[in-house]
């Protein structure tokens, strides 16, 4: 039991004294998750809106595929992305293996179905009277889509938050595609896994606390944003 308490005490010291290795992992994580979230929101929200709003042939089948991708194992994504980015892979010449953009590609694949499926659900649950109301007030087609999207903003925020949670906490992609290279591609989760394997709990606990703090900060921000808009 003592080693856990000692770990907590040392974790606070690492954070307070600005331990370079700990902060490197934090910055890498924030950076790479920002890349992947930006891309997955830019692609996923419009696609999710289309999937939830429009009725087209094959929509139900596509929805089943997207819902299935929600449970993609991160190690499988890591494996596939590794295969594509490795020297022998079709995208090997891009030189993205063991880089942050490489990890971001994998995390985007992880986040995209989450953003799409939850955005689509939010749009599907949208009150059907909204369309009637907007047309009755005089919107054109573009305004109809934009206003409808704005009306489901809370659902889209929830989708983004859920996806962010998955991206921040995944290990498989970062480990396989990033290679857990110190100062370069070591994220908080891969650092925790490594340090725990080495029996060094302090850094692991410190990074775990930071993960919790980031999750808390994001939730508080979203909650404030929700009240304001």
């Amino acid at each position: 039991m003592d080693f856990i308490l000692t770990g907590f005490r040392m974790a606070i010291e690492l954070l307070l004294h600005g331990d370079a290795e700990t902060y490197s992992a934090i910055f890498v994580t924030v950076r790479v998750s920002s890349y992947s979230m930006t891309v997955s929101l830019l692609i996923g929200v419009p696609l999710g809106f289309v999937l939830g709003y429009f009725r087209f042939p094959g929509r139900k089948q596509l929805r089943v595929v997207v819902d299935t991708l929600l449970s993609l194992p991160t190690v499988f994504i890591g494996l596939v992305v590794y295969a594509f980015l490795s020297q022998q892979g079709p995208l090997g010449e891009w030189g993205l293996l063991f880089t942050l953009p490489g990890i971001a590609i994998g995390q985007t694949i992880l986040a995209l179905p989450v953003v799409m499926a939850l955005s689509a659900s939010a749009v599907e649950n949208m009150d059907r009277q909204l369309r009637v109301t907007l047309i009755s007030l005089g919107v054109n087609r573009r305004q109809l889509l934009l206003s409808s999207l704005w009306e489901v903003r809370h659902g889209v925020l929830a989708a983004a938050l859920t996806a962010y949670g998955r991206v921040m906490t995944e290990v498989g992609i970062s480990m396989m595609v990033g290679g857990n290279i110190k100062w370069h591609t070591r994220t908080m989760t891969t650092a925790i896994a490594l340090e725990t394997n080495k029996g060094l709990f302090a850094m692991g606990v410190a990074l775990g606390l930071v993960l919790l703090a980031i999750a808390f900060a994001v939730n508080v921000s979203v909650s404030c944003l929700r009240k304001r808009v």
Partner: protein
Amino acid sequence: MTVKDAVYQVNDVLHRYAVEPVLRIDALAIPQAAIVGLIGPNGSGKSTLLRLLGFVEKPSRGEILFKGRPAAPFSKAVRFKVTLLSQEPYLMRRSVIKNIAYGLELRGSRDHLRSRVAEALSWLGLPAEVFADRQWSELSGGEAQRVALAARLVLRPEVLLLDEPTASVDAVSVERIKAAALKARNEWGTTLLIASHDWQWLYEVCDEVLQLFNGQLVGPGRMNIVLGPWQARPDGYWQKVLSGGQEIVTTAPPAADAVAVVDSDKIMVVDAFGSGRQRKNILKGTISRLVLEKGSRNIVATILVDTMPFAVMVPPKRVESLNLCPGREIDIYFSPNSVKWIHQGDNTHPNKSGL
């Protein structure tokens, strides 16, 4: 009325959801600045007709002319002129002022927004200083309905379509909504189409009341609809026995489940009890209400025969001479030959209507 005089001209419109037709209107013209009421049971097509006239949906077949020109959803000719308030209005997830100003902003009309919103709220009896900055979620059902109507009235539309505007709201809201709707017509010449179960209100304010049944226009709202099934009688007539044992007798229907239509003009109020009891269709009932019809200045008496209400047109002098008043028992009579028929599966029923 020429096509030019009509704000709407509906030609051979059929609308269906999935496979089933839900509305079929061969011809209908609505004059400008008229107040037209739509009555009919749930599922009769009132809301569908309003959505088509509001250009929210496009009919599956046929065309709707707006001021003599074909129009469709999003077309410039109607976008800023026609507005629909649906039965369960949707307020956007924003404040009252933003909800009401939304339509004005779409039109690029951003001057004096706050004062115009305040004025629209005042028409509905909602003080702006109390309600303007409230969020949509902070309103009661009646307040939300009034805000939704204010969002339409602030646009000063040429056509205002109201779908059950007073359903599920409190008495104060009902009065405010009725007054504000009429204000639009009286002050700006707005054409009003109102679907409602409130017959009394419609008879009082409408230039014409149309009755819909089973997706078809039956005729003026004074038509009485009697559902089948019908049973053959030994004397060659057919009958339906009401819950209290009284019989409605008709000529042979086109089918046993056909729907009978009896014009209120064809029903007479009979004074003396028992007189002519040997005649068919003398039905004993109780007057439930008397309403002055705006157009004809006649009295529309609603008479409950067992549990079935019959609308009967009675000249005011006759009301006076017979001393008719709600609660009084009275006999009504109509000839079996005056009954017209709608066959449920008959899509060829003539339903042309020009006001």
